[in-house]
């Protein structure tokens, strides 16, 4: 055996593709993996012999070898014929080496699927050709999308059982494409296969002559995953300070994304201190450049204070640094998430961060993607939450960077990993980070208008009189030459929020958008009058947190439910009572009364005119406007 040839062959190298397989046992997921392993010749003879023995004992395929048993490793799984945990399999071809995360498909194992998806670049979503797109197909696709997978293979399996029927295949593909349109996948490649008989798995099947695309393995070998991380901006989470003696101080870590060269300028995200990279040290010699994925030790030109958990970046490409952010959260523990309770967070290499989930904005039904109001998250549930940390942390949105946008939640008492999060956006920027300074500030704009900008937030039941009072307040302020804008629920829905329905989840998003718009308008120096039911404290507080403390004035329009029902100006209560509207506040959805509103308007004894005058008095007292 010429040894040179062996070395050359190894060195020619190949890259690695990590993928996840989604589907339930019935879809033939384990069978497919077993087939891939077997046909790519990584199953050895002794393992095949053991497989034949096991097939006789536990198998579900009659006299044939049951490939599923190759991958279901735990005794309980083999006995029950289900997959409990994430299993990792490896196989290699001349072009690529593959790592497969085999995960269970049932809803109660959402956390396992999320685990398998977290590091995967591609997902194979299996569909039983006889059954088509099912609820679970949608669940799996959603979780893959949420975890940042951008490439999907739609493996329409058991094509043999529908007699290799093209129309059947086309219909399933059509159904799936329609559903997956909103999931942000870069590529979706449908392939008709039979995992059991091997059609279109390793070789092109002659039974599906109508199918012109690649077979599964060919596609997995050739798909371009030229990792997106290389094109991203430079991020280096400091993992460990290497200080063997007084002469050497290096920062060990793995390049999360982008690349860095000796001599490049860097900034420590949290402190804002800048310096230059002196050397990129490895035992194999100094490197001129380190790329995404490289584990290196960086030395710097200046001695600045850096420790484990710091995130290094280029000064012109800084990450977000804040102590409040919004994130998707997958709950993984039997004890439900309790908003407001303290947990330990780990973000990048920043460990032991005290933090809490301040609000659950909505829960997402993993089967329908519908947003639902929620007070807690139970095992395997996914929510969109506000998170607050004791210290500012550096991160990127997960959509932009999976490595620097993810975090885990650890229980303070049991130390269990109870949640996994994907950061969506910062809620407040840390004060020591300079934002783009605006030449004309909020106060200048407001001074010109002779008023203080603020958000006046009317909350209360439907029919309580919010809009009526808000309208009169607006007229009165206008008469006083104040610059105002009135944002009303119904009006917002005609434009900005016309894509939102009336589900509780959409209401949460409704308020979020309104809050952001109100904030921008307040930045412009306006007095922003908002009239929204906004039944949850969490959302009202979210808007409150967007602006300075004195700029948010919550006005509770307090009208008893019986009175609202009796007034019923839009006929909504009668519809709700007859069941024609679901989740109607006050009827079958809660209204959380404000605990400490800036002003409490009891409407029963006064006219709208009097109530509006009382509001104006409050604004005068707070020097928002000046009385005449």
């Amino acid at each position: 055996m010429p040894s040179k040839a062996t070395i050359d062959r190894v060195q020619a190298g190949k890259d690695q593709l990590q993928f996840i397989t989604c589907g339930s046992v019935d879809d033939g997921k384990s069978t497919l993996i077993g087939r891939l392993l077997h046909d790519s010749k990584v199953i050895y003879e002794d393992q095949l012999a053991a497989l034949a023995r096991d097939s006789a004992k536990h198998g579900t395929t009659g006299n044939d070898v049951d490939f599923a048993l190759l991958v279901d490793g735990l005794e309980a799984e083999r006995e029950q014929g289900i997959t409990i945990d994430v299993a990792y399999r490896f196989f290699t071809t001349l072009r690529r080496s593959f790592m497969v995360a085999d995960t269970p498909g049932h809803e109660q194992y959402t956390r396992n699927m999320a685990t398998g998806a977290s590091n995967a670049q591609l997902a194979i979503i299996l569909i039983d050709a006889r059954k088509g797109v099912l609820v679970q197909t949608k669940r799996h696709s959603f979780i893959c999308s949420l975890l940042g997978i951008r490439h999907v293979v739609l493996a329409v399996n058991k094509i043999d059982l529908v007699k290799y029927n093209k129309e059947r295949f086309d219909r399933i593909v059509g159904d799936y494409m329609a559903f997956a349109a909103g999931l942000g996948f870069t590529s979706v490649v449908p392939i008709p296969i039979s995992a059991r008989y091997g059609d279109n798995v390793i070789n092109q099947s002659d039974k599906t002559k109508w199918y012109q695309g690649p077979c599964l393995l060919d596609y997995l070998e050739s798909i371009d995953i030229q990792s997106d991380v290389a094109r991203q901006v430079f991020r280096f989470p400091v993992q460990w300070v290497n200080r063997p003696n007084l002469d050497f101080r290096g920062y060990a870590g793995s390049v999360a994304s982008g690349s860095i060269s000796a001599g490049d300028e860097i900034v420590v995200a949290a402190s804002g201190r800048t310096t230059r990279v002196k050397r990129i040290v490895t035992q194999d010699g100094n490197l001129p450049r380190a790329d995404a994925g490289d584990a290196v030790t960086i030395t710097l030109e200046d001695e600045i204070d850096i420790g484990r958990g710091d995130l290094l970046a280029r000064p012109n490409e800084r990450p977000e640094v804040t102590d409040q952010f919004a994130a998707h959260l997958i709950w993984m523990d039997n004890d439900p998430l309790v908003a407001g309770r303290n947990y330990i967070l780990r973000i990048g290499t920043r460990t032991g961060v005290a933090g809490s989930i301040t609000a659950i904005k909505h829960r997402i039904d993993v089967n329908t993607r519908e947003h639902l109001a929620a007070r807690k998250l139970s095992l395997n549930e996914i929510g969109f939450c506000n998170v607050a940390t004791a210290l500012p942390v550096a991160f990127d949105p997960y959509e932009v960077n999976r490595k620097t946008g993810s975090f885990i939640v650890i229980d303070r008492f049991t130390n269990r990993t109870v949640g996994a999060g994907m950061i969506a956006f910062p809620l407040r920027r840390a004060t020591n980070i300079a934002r783009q300074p605006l030449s004309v500030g909020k106060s200048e704009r407001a001074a010109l208008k002779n008023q203080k900008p603020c958000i006046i937030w009317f909350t209360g039941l439907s029919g309580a009189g919010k809009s009526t009072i808000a309208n009169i307040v607006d007229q009165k302020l206008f008469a006083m030459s104040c610059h105002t804008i009135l944002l009303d629920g119904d009006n917002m829905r005609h434009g900005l929020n016309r894509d939102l329905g009336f589900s509780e989840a959409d209401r949460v998003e409704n308020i979020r958008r309104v809050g952001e718009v109100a904030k921008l308008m307040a930045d412009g120096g306006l007095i922003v009058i908002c009239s929204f039911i906004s039944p949850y404290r969490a959302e009202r507080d979210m808007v409150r947190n967007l602006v300075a403390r004195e700029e948010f004035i919550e006005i509770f329009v307090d009208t008893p439910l019986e009175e609202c029902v009796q007034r019923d100006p839009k006929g909504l209560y009668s519809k709700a009572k007859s069941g024609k509207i679901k989740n109607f506040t006050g009827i079958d959805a809660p209204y959380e009364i404000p605990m400490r509103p800036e002003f409490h308007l009891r409407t029963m004894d006064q006219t709208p005119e009097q109530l509006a005058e009382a509001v104006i008095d409050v604004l005068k007292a707070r020097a928002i406007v000046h009385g005449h």
Partner: protein
Amino acid sequence: MQQSGCRVVRSCLLLRQGYRPKRKRCAKWHLTNNNSVSKKNHMLPKHLRRLEAESIEIMREVVAGFKNPVMLYSIGKDSSVMLHVAIKAFYPAKLPFPLLHVDTTWKFREMITFRDETAKRLGVELIVHVNKEGLERGINPIDCGSALHTRVMKTDALKQALDLYQFDAAFGGARRDEEKSRAKERILSFRSAGHVWDPRNQRPELWNLFNTQLLQGETMRVFAMSNWTELDIWEYIMLEKIPVVPLYFAKQRPVVRRSGATIMVDDKRLRLQSNETPEMRMIRFRTLGCYPLSGAIDSDATTIEDIVAEMHTATVSERQGRLIDTDEAASMEKKKWEGYF
């Protein structure tokens, strides 16, 4: 340190700046010019660079996250790679944890020689632990069977050593491709007090965000080489020129056939049966353990390159040569519950 049941070898710390490979080229670069730039690492193919980097990241994570880590050193090829990568991970600092070898006293003689030479060559701290009680009771693989021998001399001995030195994290060289229940193993494998492994009570591992928090008495086994395959290991050994025990290379050695396996006659304790006559055969080992439990394979592979070439055409798994895995159904899973690596 001289408590019951352990013998401690502490080799001196030879190199203040850590281990440098014997390859002259690299060593010279280091010594001559601090700012020189290496081209060497770029000779590693992408998938091996990636595996190496991943293992380095895990090792640094453990050193940063635990109080008192240790690296299990089994002398085999996986341990050789693990140690090689570990030295890279902390360069230029020396290895920030000791090595621990759990000696069943039934290892091949060449393994023990290699172990002591390696510790000396690299200047790393090595702890050797033997279950003295098991030894006194005469536990051995030939009379007691592989199951009892493994439990007492490997699993119990390991637990003793971890307790004795209060290690809270122990690196092991196990890989996910080795065996079915290993395929489900975490990289950080949680063990509750008493070293119990419960597959249903493992922490989810997402991204590279490991949870290193422990309560009193809890420990972690860390499989930093989880995602390497046997082929990766050999390709890496070849390209990085890592020394391994000579038993991996084919050579004429005295063997007998026993229980369907080819067993090397390493010393007199094997006690030949009347129908057993040692014959010289060209054999090598794909995995190494206690010699009466390690099956040899016929092979002509005398160099690493030969082994890699042989791997490309192998038709049986490396574990086939291991007698301890076939003791009973779900054998590995059961051993892991008891605290085996």
